[in-house]
């Protein structure tokens, strides 16, 4: 959940910056941001481990303050962010690219600041795409398994994600526990998707008219 919120804002803003950036590094930056999507989660997990682990650069830096994030709740969140971020970023950027450029120009000629253009025009107009991206991201975070296992382990009540709980419950023969978790994740996912769809069609109805 935390990961979804972080990705939502991070993905939104970075996608917007990338939409407006047309420099020569665009292709490279885009590839790097999308990379976690195509890598196996264990590879992403391994990379995070190298970075924030006890001997990694970030891990070393944090150790000065006596903070250890590996195999903690934070590590689970970071793993989810890294793995699910490209989904939000790519889908949102696609939605931004679809916006009629005249809408953004119109907002600017009316004296809107870039922040206003973003929050009042770009985000609301691209909302269906952003909503879809958020739903996807949430689903991905909820289902995160590989990378989380690598960096956060499975500490019940702390770093154990639902899919990991299901995996270990099944392994341990506790089919009842696994089933309960399966039903819970099923319910959450369905609820999110239904709310998402309902909200979309409601908004559309409100703005749709007789004109073409």
């Amino acid at each position, binding site marked *: 959940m935390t990961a979804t919120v972080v990705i939502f804002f991070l993905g939104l803003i970075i996608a917007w910056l990338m939409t407006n950036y047309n420099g020569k590094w665009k292709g490279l930056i885009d590839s790097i941001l999308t990379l976690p999507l195509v890598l196996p989660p264990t590879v992403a997990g391994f990379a995070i481990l190298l970075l924030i682990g006890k001997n990694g650069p970030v891990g070393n830096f944090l150790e000065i303050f006596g903070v250890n994030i590996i195999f903690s709740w934070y590590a689970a969140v970071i793993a989810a962010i890294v793995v699910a971020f490209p989904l939000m970023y790519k889908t949102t950027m696609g939605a931004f690219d679809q916006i*009629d450029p*005249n*809408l953004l*120009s*119109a*907002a*600017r*000629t*009316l*004296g*809107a*600041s870039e922040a*206003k253009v973003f929050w*009042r*025009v770009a985000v*609301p*107009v691209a*909302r269906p795409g952003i909503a879809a991206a958020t739903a996807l991201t949430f689903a991905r975070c909820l289902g995160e398994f590989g990378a989380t296992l690598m960096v956060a382990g499975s500490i019940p009540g702390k770093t154990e994600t639902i899919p990991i709980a299901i995996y270990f419950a099944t392994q341990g023969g506790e089919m009842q526990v696994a089933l309960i978790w399966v039903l819970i994740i099923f319910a959450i996912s369905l609820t999110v998707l239904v709310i998402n769809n309902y909200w979309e069609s409601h908004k559309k109805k*409100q*703005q*749709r*008219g*007789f*004109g073409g």
Partner: protein
Amino acid sequence: MEFVIDIKKRLYDFQLDVSLQSKEEIIGILGASGSGKSMLLRCISGLVKPDEGQIIINSKTFFDSEKKINLSMRDRKVGFLFQNYALFPNMTIAENIAFGLDKLSKTEKNERVSALMEKYHLGDIGKRYPTQISGGQQQRVALARAVAVEPDILLLDEPFSALDVHLRNHMMREMSELLKEFQGLTLFVTHNREEAYRLADYIAVFKTGKVEIFGQKDAIFKWPASLETAKITGCKNIVAATRLSENRLHVPQWNISLTTVMKIEPENGYMGIRANQVKLVDEPDDQQENYFKVWIADESDGPFRTSLYLKIGSRPESIHDFHIQCEISREERNHLDNLSEPFVIYINPEFVFFVDQ
């Protein structure tokens, strides 16, 4: 009211190089698509930064490459009407109009919006969304939104191209009225000479990024000063000609000589006569000047007017074998059925123009 625009902007292999200054209030920019008209509006509004030059509107410098001035769009106060109106689909009509009014208090904002809604005949549609109103209403909303910020200059980019013919004529009259009320400069871009003529007092003709000619609209339409202007203002009969004397020219291709009112200076050039100024007459006048015998090579009927493709001096061999195009009403065309070929045309010396090569 005064503006000075003198800018250069390079974009791939296209070069915009415009120098224009005027004290007029409504100026039409007429040019074919790709002639850089829209780019000019984008430079003035600040959406695009020119490479060099200056833009001064009402003694306020928007841009000056030498003094390193480039006002932000927020400080420019420009009203821009986009071709597709660019209304924000996620906001109601009232919210759209109020979009640029953040500096005002809530009551002032509401007052301004309702005053504009009243003035632009928007009635009680303030709570609707842009897709729920008609094309004409959308245009008025877009104009109200642009004017709401009290701009120094209003820029209209092909304002009627999204409307159907019926609505277009209606909106042109309405727009003409609304523009007269607007206290400021208006620059509007179009590829349609009729729109330009109806709305503007002065017209600038654009060709490949340059101002071909700028002047009072009647002068431009009556005696265009260049070949390009003649073409873009819709002259259908343009042909190479040579000077015989101050008021007489020869058209070798047609094998005729014509008398003109316009004084002819260069030796070689092109002569033009508008298709609607070529008159068919029953009997030639006594003096015989500018009367010619013609045969019909082809004709094309419109709902109210007919275009005739005529050959001067001899019978045409095919429908493509013609010299001059002539536009007449259906009644005049039907009248021809009472006569027999060859018919006689009269080219009024008043409307013959001659342009340099």
